[in-house]
Every structure is written in C-alpha cells, then in structure tokens.
C-alpha cells in the first residue's frame, strides 16, 4: 500500500470518540464503586471511629493513605500521555515517604521499647495484607483497561502507578476499618500490601500497556 493511500484511509476515521481523561475518570468511578461496595458489605467502618477521629495517630494514618491516593491518581491522569513529566509526582511521593519516616521516628520516641513489638504487629496484620489487595483488584483492573487507550512512554511504570492509585484507594477505605493506628503498623503492613499491588500493576502494565 502506498503511504498516500494509508493517509486517505486514516482520514476516514478522523473523529476521536473516547479521550483518555474521560476513560480514566470512568475507571476511577467504577473502581471506587466496586471497592466501596465490597468494603461496606464485608469489612465495614470500625465502631469507635468517632473517638478514634480525635487521635493524632488515626488522623495521620487516614490522611497519609488519602494523600497517597490523591498523588497517584493525579499521576495516573498524566502517565498515559507519551510526553508526560512525572518528576513532580515522584517528589510528592518521596515527601509522603519521608512524612511516614518521621512519624515512625516520633512513635519510637514516645513509645516505651517494650511496646514496639505490640504496636508493630497490631491486631490485624494478616487481615490488612488480605483486604488492601482485595479491595484494590477492581480499581486496578479498570485503570489498566482505561490506560490501554493511552500511550505511556514506559508501560511498566504506568501499570505500577495505576497499582499505587488502586492501593491508595483501597488503603483509604481499609484505614477507617483498621483498629491499628500506630505508624509502626502502617509503615510495615500497609507498605507491604501497597508494594504487592504496585508490583502486580508493574507486571501487568509491561504486558498490557504496550502500544
């Protein structure tokens, strides 16, 4: 086929029906609906949420995972464009990690050494490792599907960021169930769960998001 003929063919398919941002927005809404439904049906808000809401540890935990969700969701909205600049989101993510590090140091400082182990293991470690990835499955799947309409320069990275956003969403929900508020617990178990989902996102992205 001559290139001129190909151009004639492409010109007949000129209009763009679905734009990337619209697809991603729909993916976020659908993912949130499924994750929230699952959370409400099988996990639920902790009974003492009102009094917990007055404590620094609980507020820090919820704000941290919500910030993770916001930062990675913003990064997802960019990563499908081939010329995306992701450095600002990388810096924001690093700032979040430093904030968690400072909280861990503060917790170690104010807590007697004998309690460190108890705070670290908490009451719910295994449940945390199961629930966060489970709640993240639907949002991750929807986001990956939406990103297939994108043109990420690095498909694996795009999948990983989608995984981060999905676990941020899942962790925000889980945080209002979880009775363990210590930064020691959050830094350990939430991080492992998030890393797991992010890793799955990376592998899936490298395969599914090539274009």
């Amino acid at each position, binding site marked *: 086929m001559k*290139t001129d003929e190909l151009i004639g*063919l492409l*010109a007949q398919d000129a*209009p763009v029906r679905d734009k990337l941002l619209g697809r991603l927005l729909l993916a976020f809404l659908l993912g949130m609906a499924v994750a929230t439904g699952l959370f409400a049906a099988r996990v639920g808000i902790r009974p003492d949420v009102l009094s917990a809401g007055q404590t620094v540890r609980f507020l820090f935990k919820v704000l941290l995972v919500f910030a993770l969700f916001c930062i990675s969701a913003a990064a997802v909205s960019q990563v499908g464009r081939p010329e995306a600049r992701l450095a600002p989101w990388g810096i924001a993510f690093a700032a979040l990690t430093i904030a968690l590090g400072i909280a861990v140091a503060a917790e170690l400082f104010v807590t007697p050494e004998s309690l460190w182990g108890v705070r670290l293991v908490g009451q719910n470690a295994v449940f945390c490792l199961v629930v966060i990835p489970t709640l993240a499955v639907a949002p991750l799947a929807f986001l990956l599907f939406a990103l297939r309409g*994108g043109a990420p320069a690095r498909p694996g990275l795009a999948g990983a960021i989608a995984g981060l956003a999905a676990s941020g969403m899942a962790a925000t929900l889980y945080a209002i169930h979880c009775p363990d508020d210590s930064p020691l617990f959050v830094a350990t178990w939430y991080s492992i769960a998030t890393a797991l989902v992010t890793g799955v996102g990376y592998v899936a992205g490298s395969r599914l998001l090539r274009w």
Partner: protein
Amino acid sequence: MSLSEREAQWSGWLRSAMAGDATAYRRFLDAVTPHLRAMAHRHSRAFGGSQDDIEDIVQEVLLAVHLKRGTWDTSRPVGPWLSAIVRNKLVDVLRQKGRRPTVPIEDVVEALAAPEDDDGLQAYDIDRMIDRLKGVQQDIVRSISRDGSSVRETAGRLNMTEGAVRVALHRALRALAAAYRGQT
C-alpha cells in the same frame, strides 16, 4: 514558514480532525509525513537498515499517531506530544527489525522534511497485515485505500450502514496495529 506557525497550523488541523474534519486530518497527515520520512531515513540508516524499510516504518508510525491521537491534550502544543509518540514508536519499530536503537527525542516540527515527491512510495508490511484482517474489515480497508471509495460508497456496495462501516474501519485499524505488535 516559521516553526511556531507550523506548530499552530498542525495543532489547528489535528484539533479539527479530532472533532471529525477529515479534510483537516488529511492536511495534518500530509504535512507530518515528509518529516517522519526524513527521521525514519536518518535513524534507519544509522542502525544499518535498508532503504526498503523506510516506508514500512513511516506507515507504522502514522498508524500509531492515528490510534493514539486521543492522548493529545488539545490545550497544549502538538509538537512535544507528536515527537514523543514518534520517538517511542521508532524505538519499537527499529527494535522489531532487529536493531538496538537509542533514538534521542527529536522535535518533529523542527525536523527537516524529505522531498515532497516521495508520496507515491510503496510499503509492503502493511499488505501482509491487511491479509490477516477479518473478511469485512479487509473489504472495507481495500475499498477505501486502494479503490479510493468513500465510506458512503463502501457502505452501499457492502450493504452496510455508514456508521457500521466507520466502526468496522476503526476496529480494522486497531487490528492492524495489533498485527504489527504481534509480528517478529
């Protein structure tokens, strides 16, 4: 024409194209193609490619630009977006053809254009990809590209609605890109 004028012109054409203007889209693709061809020429030669590959590369890159145009944020200049698409696709295509390229990102708007009279150049990869399409998709692609029929004429001849032809054409183009990805 200055670079900023060219940028404004290409952006305008692609914006109209995305809203459905086929003529503007043709102008955009016609304008971009000589630049792509010159870039393909340079990179292909740098990695020991043959002259025959160049038009194949140009066509595969054009198809990627086409299928991914929805990722362009129309409020931004088209140049950086286009350059990123082209650079990524060039790396892919050259790798598929057995080379290990390091293609620097290069501004398509600024790239020198190849001489205009190359438009009749033929490529062969795409014909093998078209052979793999489903029957109706093949008919539609051949009818519009080779015979130069319009969507309406094609719809009349195949006893389909125009909308159905457009949908099938879009799917066929996506299938072509998938076929390129699946080869090697």
